[in-house]
């Protein structure tokens, strides 16, 4: 019997509906209230200094779990005040506290103290970089502000002004571009965004605890949280706690993987297989589309056990691999020989396929204007979602990007402006569009163009060092599209989210600079007061010097690894796979799985495959398809919360142990 053709439109629509556990029926409400805003400011600003301090001391901030702690605290307060918390409020609170606590924890996010240290390092002196650091990055190395360890000093005027302008422009670009792409991928194409319900259902479940009647959500969330606490203790807690007390931590399961690569080399030379032991990934297997997981695993197995050893190694395309290499060595050499180039090509195929699918939708847009919101091929928005005119967001992005390019051009006037324009208006839209699509289907980014900066600098023949200190206008807004989908699933108006961010971001930028100032005042960074920074910052400084001087002789091993014939092979073979799947009337999900899995390590997919098989052959039979798709995002959200809480408790204990000074008598 001939197979019935299911068009891509029908296929995506079906998956999108499956992941919309409430069947698309929702009313939209604002999540930004005064109590939410004050709660986020209070909790965020209270935890932010702690997370920055923890990062400098222990290298872990605990920022992942902090928003969940804030939300649990908020719901408990609501219960004790005999009031309720809406899921829209909780989701906005999660986002705002996450932004507040995560703000500035990475030393490069607010780089003033880092550059104050870097400019005086012996590495920067010996590599002849120290005197060439521009005035808009850091003051001179003998400046009073650096000697006094103060950020609140006029010496920092230009670095901080440039930083503020760049940060605010970046926020405008991120919001507008991610919204624009969301409208294209979620509204127009109806891509399913499989991981978005996990974020949405966590807030929904916690909101229900403050209501009168608890539903299945709270029970499922609790089961997930307990599983997460147990697994987190087993996987993160035991190694971390024993690491505090012993010189070698106890790992019951080796973290992060058990490497079988040397064991398979006798029958699969140049193949790799490292079994990832984070079985929390099983829950991702519950959630992600079954065809993607299985086809991805099958194609990864094919790569590592047939393609690599029997074809690429035999014909000496993988020529650097030697027996005895572990997974990291095998991956490095295989990437340099072939897979780096091939992966670039296959990433471009996602853009080509996406555009090929979008062009006819655009052509049919005029017909679809009469279609109802929620149907594929329609840009109509659901009523009350708080949408913005799409031209306005597109225009905002263009204006803010033009201003950004102009500022960068003023900062490095001798660098060819054509490269900046190319990054801003060709590379960034392409990069973001590809990753928006892969987030919409696979829940993760796939497009990586390695060493693009180095390639640009070589092509531009620009030899000054200042270009390395500029943030070039190459950005990826793909991940941001998922956030809008989560807002939609939680029934939160888009306007309330944008307003919350607009109020919070300026506050956070100023607060983070002040907090860094006070932490710097306590003791020099790095110093014995900040052991993690003392250990790692000198290494980071060496690393940075090596990168910044790597192209002085115009050579880079990585750049030489990129070969046009292999890039073309990745691009064309992926398109051929797509074409054959279409001819065979097979679902296009398979394309994303097969092409996504080519060249990957199948060992890292094993937990997800186990989850997918359990879900498909046990859970769906047990609970039914619809109920299982309602349960699994809530379960995964609870699990994330549980693991995060264990992680935070572990960091706290590690901090206490590091704060104890052992006297030698």
């Amino acid at each position, binding site marked *: 019997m001939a197979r019935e053709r299911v*068009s*891509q*439109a029908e296929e995506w629509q079906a998956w999108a509906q499956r992941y919309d556990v409430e069947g698309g029926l929702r009313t939209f409400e604002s999540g930004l209230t005064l109590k939410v805003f004050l709660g986020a400011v209070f909790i965020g600003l209270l935890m932010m200094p702690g997370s920055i301090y923890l990062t400098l001391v222990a290298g872990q901030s605990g920022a992942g779990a902090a928003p969940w702690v804030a939300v649990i605290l908020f719901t408990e307060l609501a219960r004790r005040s005999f009031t309720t918390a809406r899921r829209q409020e909780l989701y906005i609170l999660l986002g705002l506290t996450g932004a507040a606590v995560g703000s500035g924890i990475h030393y490069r996010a607010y780089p003033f103290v880092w550059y104050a240290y870097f400019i005086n390092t012996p590495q920067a002196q010996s590599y002849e970089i120290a005197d060439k650091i521009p005035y808009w990055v850091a003051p001179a190395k003998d400046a009073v502000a650096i000697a006094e360890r103060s950020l609140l000093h006029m010496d920092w005027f230009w670095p901080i002004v440039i930083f503020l302008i760049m940060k605010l422009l970046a926020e405008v670009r991120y919001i507008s571009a991610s919204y624009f792409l969301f409208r294209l991928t979620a509204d127009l194409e109806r891509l399913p965004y499989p991981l978005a319900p996990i974020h949405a259902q966590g807030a929904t479940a916690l909101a229900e605890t403050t209501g009168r009647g608890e539903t299945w959500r709270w029970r499922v969330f609790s089961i997930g949280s307990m599983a997460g606490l147990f697994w987190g203790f087993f996987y993160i807690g035991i190694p971390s706690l024993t690491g505090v007390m012993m010189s070698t931590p106890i790992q019951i399961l080796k973290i992060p993987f058990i490497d079988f690569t040397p064991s398979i080399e006798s029958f699969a030379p140049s193949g790799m297989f490292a079994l990832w032991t984070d079985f929390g990934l099983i829950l991702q297997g519950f959630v992600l589309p079954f065809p993607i997981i299985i086809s991805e695993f099958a194609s990864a197995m094919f790569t590592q056990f047939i393609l690599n050893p029997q074809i690429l190694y035999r014909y000496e395309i993988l020529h650097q691999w030697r027996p005895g290499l572990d997974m990291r060595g095998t991956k490095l050499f295989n990437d340099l020989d072939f897979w780096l180039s091939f992966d670039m090509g296959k990433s471009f195929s996602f853009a*080509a*396929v996406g555009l*090929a*699918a979008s*062009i*006819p*939708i655009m*052509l*049919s847009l005029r017909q679809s204007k009469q279609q109802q919101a929620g149907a594929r*091929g329609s840009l109509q928005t659901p009523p009350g979602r708080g949408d913005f005119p799409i031209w306005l967001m597109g225009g905002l992005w263009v204006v803010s990007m033009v201003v950004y390019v102009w500022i960068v051009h003023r900062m490095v006037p001798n660098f060819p402006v054509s490269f900046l324009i190319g990054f801003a208006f060709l590379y960034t839209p392409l990069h973001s569009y590809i990753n928006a699509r892969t987030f919409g289907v696979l829940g993760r980014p796939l497009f990586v163009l390695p060493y693009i900066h180095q390639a640009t600098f070589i092509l531009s023949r620009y030899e000054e060092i200042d270009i390395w200190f500029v943030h070039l206008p190459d950005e990826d807004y793909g991940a941001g599209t998922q956030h809008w989908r989560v807002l939609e699933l939680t029934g939160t108006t888009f306007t309330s989210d944008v307003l919350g961010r607009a109020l919070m971001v300026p506050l956070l930028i100023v607060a983070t600079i002040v907090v860094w100032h006070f932490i710097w005042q306590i003791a020099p960074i790095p110093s014995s007061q900040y052991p993690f920074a003392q250990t790692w910052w000198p290494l980071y400084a060496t690393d940075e010097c090596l990168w910044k001087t790597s192209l002085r002789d115009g050579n880079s091993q990585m750049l030489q690894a990129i070969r*046009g*014939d292999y*890039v*073309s*092979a990745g*691009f*064309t*073979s992926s*398109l*051929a796979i*797509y*074409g*054959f799947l*279409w*001819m065979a009337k097979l679902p296009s999900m398979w394309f994303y799985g097969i092409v996504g899995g080519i060249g990957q390590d199948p060992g890292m997919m094993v937990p997800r495959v186990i989850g997918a098989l359990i879900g498909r052959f046990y859970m769906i039979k047990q609970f039914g398809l619809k109920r299982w798709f309602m349960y699994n995002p809530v379960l995964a959200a609870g699990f994330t919360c549980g693991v995060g809480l264990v992680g935070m408790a572990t960091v706290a204990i590690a901090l206490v142990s590091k704060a104890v000074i052992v006297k030698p008598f």
Partner: protein
Amino acid sequence: MEKLAYLLIFIGATFWIFSIFLMRAQWQPQLLAATILIVGIIIAHVWEELFREKK
């Protein structure tokens, strides 16, 4: 239109295999094959979106 898409995808894929085995996998013929494939895929989607539903 559906038949044309089939034909172009088939020609593109066959030409790519030909370019790998008989033209030393040079990037120029591979990209020519890719162009044929892209045209075929676009026609396939145009047919799906604009013509198939009408039928």
